């Protein structure tokens, strides 16, 4: 045994599934327990193949020969190296896709993939140059299960529940029963839990990790942030009389939703975060384009026709204008309206009273 070698059993993805150390040449491969490499593959003969170490012709100094063999292994198998010999069998083998019938011999360079029966084998010897050690990507590091302090998730959940309760309280006029209030609170929480559980299941499938906490954290962060913005934007718009700020709402919602999706997906497919970002970003852009496309006849591409939020008067900072200034400002509407009126629209209208 002068050349260290291993045979790797390769799965369909090309990853090594199992490894067999070659302890002596020649090596017998087959189904029989007498073989050196026993494969439980019903499409194999008892002893299906032999692997020799061919020393090459005139036997010379082992040291120089070793170097030559390494250099010429591919081009000239005769110069030495592993050689495959097929013993009598029905199915023969394929070496890198080329058919080998029973009884044939062929050099087996380490770049070539051998398929016997349905099993795929690769040979690696000490003559092959060993690739340098690859640096690890972050995604391959062990998952940090304590990325957040343990109180963070319950605390965020509590914050969200409080926000939901306040929103719900503020929108009802005191006539709601406790059943209404509790269900208004539980429904969104339930949806968030189910959503996280589904993502966790997907993560289980791809990464064998039921990442419920990780997904729930992401949902909560996104929802709390978006809900806070949804309150803050109209109030800011009112304070400073900046109604166009409300256009951001639509943007924030779609971009926020896309970011959340991406954040979920990176848990499931950590290696593909860039590809996911491109894909989800493209979806988000398409969605926005469709939204805008539907609104081309409106005054604004995004946002409502007018600012409807009226927070308590103490918050107003903008100073009111005289009526004449307002009327003067109306004049700017005439030209775009007349231009818009030139366009055709075949949408059937309602009666004249549809707006009441």
């Amino acid at each position: 045994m002068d050349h260290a070698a291993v045979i790797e059993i390769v799965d369909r993805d090309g990853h090594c599934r199992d490894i067999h150390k070659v302890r002596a040449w020649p090596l017998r491969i087959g189904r029989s327990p007498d073989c050196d490499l026993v494969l439980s593959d019903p499409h194999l003969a008892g002893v299906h193949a032999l692997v020799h170490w061919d020393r090459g012709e005139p036997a010379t100094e082992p040291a120089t020969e070793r170097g030559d063999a390494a250099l010429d292994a591919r081009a000239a198998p005769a110069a030495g190296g592993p050689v495959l010999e097929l013993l009598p069998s029905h199915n023969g083998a394929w070496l890198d896709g080329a058919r080998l019938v029973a009884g044939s011999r062929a050099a087996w360079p380490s770049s070539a993939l051998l398929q016997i029966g349905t099993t795929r084998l690769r040979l690696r010897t000490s003559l092959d140059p060993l690739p340098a050690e690859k640096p690890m990507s972050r995604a391959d590091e062990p998952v940090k299960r304590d990325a957040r302090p343990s109180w963070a998730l319950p605390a965020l959940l509590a914050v969200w529940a409080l926000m939901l309760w306040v929103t719900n309280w503020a929108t009802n006029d005191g006539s709601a029963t406790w059943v209404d209030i509790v269900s208004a609170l539980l429904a969104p929480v339930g949806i968030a839990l189910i959503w996280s559980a589904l993502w966790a299941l997907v993560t289980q499938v791809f990464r064998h990790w039921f990442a419920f906490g990780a997904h729930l954290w992401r949902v909560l962060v996104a929802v709390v942030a978006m809900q806070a913005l949804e309150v803050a934007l109209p109030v800011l718009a009112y304070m400073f009389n900046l109604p166009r700020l409300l256009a951001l709402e639509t943007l924030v919602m779609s971009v926020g939703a896309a970011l959340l999706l991406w954040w979920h997906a990176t848990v499931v497919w950590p290696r593909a975060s860039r590809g996911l970002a491109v894909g989800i970003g493209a979806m988000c852009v398409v969605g926005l384009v469709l939204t805008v496309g539907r609104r081309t006849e409106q005054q604004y591409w995004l946002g409502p026709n007018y600012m409807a939020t009226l927070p308590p008067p103490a918050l107003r900072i903008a100073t009111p204008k005289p009526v004449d200034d307002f009327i003067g400002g109306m004049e700017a509407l005439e030209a775009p309206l007349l231009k818009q009126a030139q366009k055709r629209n075949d949408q059937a209208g309602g009666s004249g009273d549809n707006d009441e």
Partner: protein
Amino acid sequence: MSRKLLTPGRAAAGAVLLLLLAALGLPVAAQSPPAPTAPIASPAAPASAASQAQPAAPVSASARRLYDRSRAQLLQIRTLYNGSQASVGSGFVVSAEGHVITNYHVVSQHALEPERYRLQYQTPEGDGGDIQLLDFDARRDLALLRVVAKAGDAKTDPKGVVARMTATPLAFRKGSQPLAKGERIYSMGNPHDVAFAVVEGTYNGLVERSFDPLIYYSGSINPGMSGGPVLDEDGEIVGINVSTMIFAQQMSFLVPAEHAAALLARSRDAAPVKGAAWPKLREQLMAYQDELSKNFLAQPWRTLTHPRYRFPIPQEQYMRCWGSGTSADAQGLQMQRTQCRMEHALFINESLQTGYLGVTEEVYDGSKLGALRFANIYSASFRNERLGAPDRDRTAPYCKEDFVQQKDGPPLRAVACLRAYRKLDGLFDLTVLVTNVDAPTEGALGRFEARGVSFANATRLTRHYLQGFAWTTPR
């Protein structure tokens, strides 16, 4: 009065009826609490049967006499689409040259799309022929037509149909002999394309609080009778059938005959209208909105009693106001609403009525709710105001919004939105939303509406409306 009876079946006919009637009659019922608007007007059919069975024996003699006398001048006006009738109405001959009066809404399809819709007339005997549009008065909902064939011309009128029609044209009753309330008058026309009918009823004077005079007639007129004549005992034209009030009994409206007489005098020798009538319609609407706006702007606002604010409420000269609100012991937000509207709208086409004003004031009291809750619920109410979506007739609303304050008035948030008419260049629908922004638990939400006004008038009306808001006690 309405048209389009047969084609799409009863339900559709009902819907049209409702739309058309809303033109003059009754938005009252359509918008305000007393009568819910849900049921469709299909009861029209049984109602018509009942009303025709009604005439009592002694008076029927004059109805019969009048019908016999005027039947030769009665016509059904049919709008044909691909050879089938798209809508039907009635009309009558008013001159020896073959001039015919009917409603504008009876011929609007032909007027606006002459290349798709043809006009024909049909006599009670079943004879018919082509008829052309000379002029119309959209404001009064009248149209002047003329029979194409010439009386006595053997080529165009071989059977002498036109000669018979024009032999004794119907005459208009003189303006100097006004009718008295309660006088019997007789409406004629072809309801639902069933058969020519004569319906007797009473003259009840003019409709009150109407911008343009309209005769209130107690008698059952039905879709299809639009444009038919209403005659007095002497067989002279008193008015023209135009609309009825839905969900009401025997409440019908007639255009006073003098407007038809004026239209005939004005356009007796006019050439037939060529092409779509949008420019003529626009011209008439422009003149109308100018008169209406001037009149409205000249009126001072009434004020609604409120401890804090003075709200602009229109005079009830030609608008009707209705009040409603939450019950006094209601929990949470309390609301009172005053809704004023002109009930007369101008018919343009099936999907568009215009030429009216409306004001709605809502007063909210949220003292039981607290500032935060009130702000939230009141905002939802402010957000709920509908402005309309872009359609075939009008653009999407374009709005101007800002905080506004007069020298001696409360600070307001004002939103003025306009929609431009696509085919009536220079006409707009205006909606102004106004709310106070100075009280944490009190809301005053106003909405002013003007349909079919010029841009200049829209800005004038907006200014007028905004100036109507003030403190109850000057500060």
